């Protein structure tokens, strides 16, 4: 029933609309939550409990209400006592079948004795072959909504923030602390979980509303406070890295703010705790704060005739509110005077279920339709626990308090103590000022550490103000006595979300799960959507009762982030997937290249027919975009010393214009990269690496220079993408380059194999030409200033048309290099392949003074090739069979090697491979057995050379 206008109400009676609840129209006002509108329309049952499908109504009328999880449109698990109603909303109950009113799954109650705590550890285990059936059955009873696969995905950018002071909680203490901190000159972020600032003042009496208005005005008028309502601090991590989740964005999405706060002020208030007794989950049992919210904020009459069990001023205030709202208060049971209740009697079934009477401890039974309890407060200490605190229980106050907080975390408000409004505000203001003082000190320290701060007068960095001020004197807050009230003489529900009763927890303890952590996991108490906020202390009390220990001795469970549910969408944000393109990418796309994703690079895999591309390179001329090849510019007099250290071969005598192939090994002799390095000038070299190794090799070299040889004069500059790189390969490649190159004599006698020149190509200066090749043909690798890459490529394609130029992609290149027997590090080697196992005997110069990996390679060499694997060329006996890469090579029952590279060779018209085999099988001519996936065995022969085509290398030296 809707009441008349209430002072401080948050509904707008000028904006009336309807929404649908399980198909029926429900009236609402702007500012109503879904649950308050339903309650105003006379509905009492909003959901069914998790396990037993018992009818549930409003309990807390807040975000944490366990009876109000709804499906709203295609959004499941909406907190109906927090989500604001909107016109034409489609709201449905969850996990009820066929309806909320008649839920067939309530049959679970009949099986209650078999569904006790931990039943899933004792059932649904055997026989194992029935697990798929068990899964389908359990899915039917899972208490969750539904997500449609067609729900449009809205990506919301995350945001980084750097507040000096982050205040978690926008009640009176939070607001006062924020204002004080901002007035002290710091940047403040104020985060409040509810839709409006104010906390408990919002549903208070006239004095509270006046204080609320004053504080809200102060917040609005104070510069430097960034306010977020309907938002939550979901987690606090090391260094006050906090996750702030903004809710209620368009489309029901959430946004994650990653805030690095210098100081965190925790002001979450207190959460009212339910009382445990028989029937405590019958619709019509509510907390005092729930009825006050309904009456004051939403003008909803929560019942007709009430009984109130009160133990504190909140309960007393609820009594006054009820009377003012026209609810008959039939009986007040004052727990401070020793009064108590035994159980609630319900009546009706399904959606008509509700309270019909209360049995008091003195034997009286009072007829009523509403029972209000005010039996204690729980401190939401999650953020403090995440900051490393282990709150201490005070039996005098019947709640936990912070014990020891780190320097960058402060607490204020109800979580810190009690007192009058003035005392709480004074405490909060002092905390705010102290937070600002500590934050300012940190800001100074960080400013002093960063080189980016503004200089004082151009001659150095600004002098910063000296440290300041004495710590703020924070007054002590009194702690009000409160009776310890957890359970009546009967058993009732402790965890409303998980349908766990006090009896369940006591049973668990008696079964041996006698710590709160064990009891929690065995019963799942506090593991539901409310995550312990309203049930933790009652669970601890039940465990304490069962063990005979005190609550302090029992302790708490560990609060872990997130404090509140966060959508995966908020955590994901906008997908950031860096992708890299070469300068010629537009040409590749326009000419039908099939893309290959190679790390972050998009490369052309082929242009339609890799075999034809191979044949064209062997017979005419092809061109491939090899821009991703790592390129490092090395300068300095000590470059040769660096090259000698990192490569296995010798570099001291490399002349200007000469190129050498090099292999790098790690300290354990394992091959980790290879490439060619050319000398462009007296102290200028250009190193190439594998595409995937570009960053790793750079790090590797810098590691040497920065940790082993800081005295060496070498500068390394990555130039991988400063050059667009292309390889022109094939018998006609020189003819083509003659048409476009200036300043370089391309004759074989002047520019031989493994040499490098600089010159002009297609009118572009500053190009580097390498006479090298991966394909086994006459070829030139061209490095062109990247901005001109597309121009040079197009010019070559144009000028080479009559020579038969065609592009070729990564696949054709792999075939060509396999025909030539060139290994690919990481393909033909693995994390255990040392240098002599990779066919690199010719390159490894053990007579060098030292190089990275030398001791291990020397040891390997001493084994005379009898240990470890060897890289060999392989040809299957049946040339039409192409063994899949990684096929095993077997010797009887043993695995003796594997195929590392395998393709059909267009040049030879048969399959060819490279393989790692045991040394005993590596001699040329050896017959080996290859085991194909599926088990079939085929024969193959070890070839004389790694190269299957032109092993002498004559084609590339013309």
């Amino acid at each position: 029933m809707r009441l008349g206008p209430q002072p401080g109400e948050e509904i707008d009676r000028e904006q009336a609309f309807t929404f649908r609840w399980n198909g029926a129209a429900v009236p609402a006002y702007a500012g109503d939550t879904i649950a308050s509108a339903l309650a105003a329309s006379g509905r009492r049952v909003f959901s069914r409990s998790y396990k037993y499908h018992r009818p549930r109504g409003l309990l807390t009328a807040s975000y944490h209400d366990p009876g109000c999880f709804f499906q709203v449109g295609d959004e499941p698990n909406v907190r109906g006592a927090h989500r604001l109603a909107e016109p034409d909303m489609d709201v449905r109950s969850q996990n009820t079948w066929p309806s909320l009113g008649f839920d067939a799954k309530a049959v679970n109650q009949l099986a209650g004795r078999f569904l006790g705590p931990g039943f899933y550890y004792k059932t649904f285990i055997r026989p194992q072959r029935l697990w798929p059936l068990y899964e389908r059955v359990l899915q039917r009873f899972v208490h969750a909504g539904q997500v449609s696969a067609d729900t449009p995905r809205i990506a919301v950018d995350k945001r980084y923030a750097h507040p000096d002071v982050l205040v978690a909680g926008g009640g009176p203490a939070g607001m006062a602390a924020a204002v004080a901190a901002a007035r002290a000159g710091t940047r403040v972020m104020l985060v409040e979980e509810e839709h409006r600032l104010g906390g408990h003042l919002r549903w208070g009496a006239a004095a509270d509303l006046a204080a609320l208005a004053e504080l809200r005005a102060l917040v609005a008028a104070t510069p430097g406070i960034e306010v977020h309502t309907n938002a939550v601090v979901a987690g606090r991590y090391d260094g006050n890295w906090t996750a702030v989740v903004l809710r209620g964005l368009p489309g029901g999405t959430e946004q994650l703010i990653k805030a690095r706060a210098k100081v965190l002020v925790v002001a979450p208030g207190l959460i009212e705790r339910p009382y445990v007794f028989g029937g405590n989950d019958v619709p019509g049992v509510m907390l005092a704060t729930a009825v006050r919210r309904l009456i004051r904020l939403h003008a909803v009459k929560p019942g007709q005739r009430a009984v109130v069990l009160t133990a504190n001023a909140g309960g007393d205030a609820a009594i006054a509110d009820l009377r003012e709202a026209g609810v008959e208060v039939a009986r007040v049971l004052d727990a401070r005077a020793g009064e108590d209740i035994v159980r609630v009697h319900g009546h009706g079934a399904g959606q008509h279920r509700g309270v019909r009477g209360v049995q008091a401890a003195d034997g009286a039974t009072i007829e009523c339709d509403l029972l209000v309890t005010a039996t204690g407060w729980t401190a939401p200490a999650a953020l403090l626990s995440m900051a490393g605190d282990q709150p201490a229980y005070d039996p005098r106050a019947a709640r936990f308090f912070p014990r020891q907080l780190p320097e960058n975390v402060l607490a204020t408000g109800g979580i810190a103590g009690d007192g009058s409004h003035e005392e709480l505000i004074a405490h909060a203001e002092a905390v705010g000022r102290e937070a600002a003082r500590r934050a300012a000190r940190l800001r100074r320290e960080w400013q002093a550490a960063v080189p980016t701060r503004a200089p004082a007068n151009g001659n150095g960095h600004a002098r910063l103000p000296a440290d300041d001020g004495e710590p703020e004197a924070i007054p002590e807050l009194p702690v009000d006595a409160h009776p310890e009230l957890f359970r009546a003489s009967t058993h009732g529900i402790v965890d409303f979300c998980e349908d766990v009763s006090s009896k369940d927890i006591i049973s668990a303890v008696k079964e041996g799960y006698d710590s709160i952590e064990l009891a929690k996991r065995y019963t799942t108490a506090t593991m539901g959507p409310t995550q312990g906020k309203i049930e933790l202390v009652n669970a601890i009390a039940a465990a304490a009762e069962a063990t005979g220990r005190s609550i302090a001795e029992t302790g708490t469970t560990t609060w872990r982030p997130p404090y509140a549910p966060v959508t995966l969408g908020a955590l994901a944000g906008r997908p950031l997937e860096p992708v890299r393109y070469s300068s010629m990418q537009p040409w590749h796309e326009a000419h039908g290249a099939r893309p290959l994703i190679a790390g972050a690079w998009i490369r052309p895999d082929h242009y339609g027919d890799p075999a034809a591309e191979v044949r064209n390179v062997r017979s005419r001329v092809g061109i491939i975009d090899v821009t991703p090849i790592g390129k490092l510019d090395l300068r300095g007099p000590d470059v040769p010393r660096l090259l000698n250290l990192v490569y296995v071969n010798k570099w001291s005598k490399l002349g200007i214009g000469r190129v050498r192939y090099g292999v790098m090994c790690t300290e354990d002799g394992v091959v980790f990269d290879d490439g060619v390095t050319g000398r462009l000038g007296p102290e200028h070299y250009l190193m190439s690496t594998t595409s995937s190794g570009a960053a790793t090799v750079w790090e590797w070299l810098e590691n040497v220079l920065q940790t082993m040889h800081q005295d060496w004069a070498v500068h390394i500059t990555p130039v991988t993408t400063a050059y667009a790189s292309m390889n022109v390969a094939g018998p006609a490649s020189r003819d083509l380059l003659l048409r476009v190159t200036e300043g370089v004599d391309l004759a074989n006698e002047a520019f031989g194999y493994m040499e490098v020149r600089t010159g002009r190509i297609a009118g572009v200066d500053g190009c580097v030409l390498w006479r090298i090749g991966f394909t086994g043909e006459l070829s030139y690798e061209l490095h062109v200033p990247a901005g001109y890459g597309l121009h040079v490529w197009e010019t070559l394609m144009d000028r080479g048309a009559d020579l038969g130029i065609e592009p070729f992609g990564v696949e054709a290149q792999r075939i060509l290099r396999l025909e030539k027997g060139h290994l690919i590090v990481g393909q033909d080697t693995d994390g255990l392949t040392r240098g002599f196992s990779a066919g690199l005997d010719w390159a490894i110069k053990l007579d060098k003074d030292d190089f990275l990996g030398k001791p291990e390679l020397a040891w390997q060499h001493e084994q005379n090739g009898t240990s470890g694997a060897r890289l060999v060329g392989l040809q299957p006996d049946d040339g039409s069979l192409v063994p899949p890469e990684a096929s095993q090579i077997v010797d009887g029952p043993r695995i003796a090697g594997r195929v590392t590279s395998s393709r059909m060779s267009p040049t030879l018209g048969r399959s060819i491979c490279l393989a790692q085999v045991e040394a005993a099988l590596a001699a040329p001519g050896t017959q080996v057995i290859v085991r194909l996936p599926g088990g079939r065995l085929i024969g193959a022969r070890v070839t004389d050379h790694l190269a299957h085509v032109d092993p002498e290398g004559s084609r590339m030296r013309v």
Partner: protein
Amino acid sequence: MSEYPGVARSPIAPAPPVRVEAGWEVSGSRSDAPLTITDCTPLAKVHLRAPWNGAMAKALGVPFGRAGRDLEGPDGVWLVAGSGPGEWFVFAPPGTAGLAGGWLGTLAADSAPEEFVSVVDLTHGRALMRITGPDAAELLARLCGADLHDDMAPDGAALRSAVAGVATDIIRDDRAGVPSYLLHCERSSGQYLFGALVSAGESLGIGVDGFRLPGI
């Protein structure tokens, strides 16, 4: 056979209309949005390494973490950024990289003959873009975790961070009192970074403003 070198291209596809400026294909788009992004890749970009506290560092006059326009080059305005300890980037008008590199080499020879100094032209190796507007820092806060408040990164700050997952140099270079940031990354990620900034800036009303000489 002297070939016209053709036009140079940025890794960032230019928004139409497309024209050629100083030998570079650029966007002719104009925007008066409160927040704009401009592809400044055509600018000359020269990378210099020298001892972080030596004579060359002093001659450059810009310490690590700061950027300035006090170095008088042969043809006017250069922006010098102290990108890392012993590492600087020099930004100059398009087509002047050779001139800048030569001049810096001479400066090194004159000011710091005993020091090991290297100069590498990275004009083609870096994608460079500028975002300008009161919400420029707000835009960056969506993609970058660095604290860009005035007290940590005021006008003239130079830092290296990750923007949209890409290693990016950031230089705060305000224009007539309006917050403005130059960002540069290795070339091949340029299109991706530019696109990420435009996407993240949509709700802030970002507009693409084409490159105009001198650009620095």
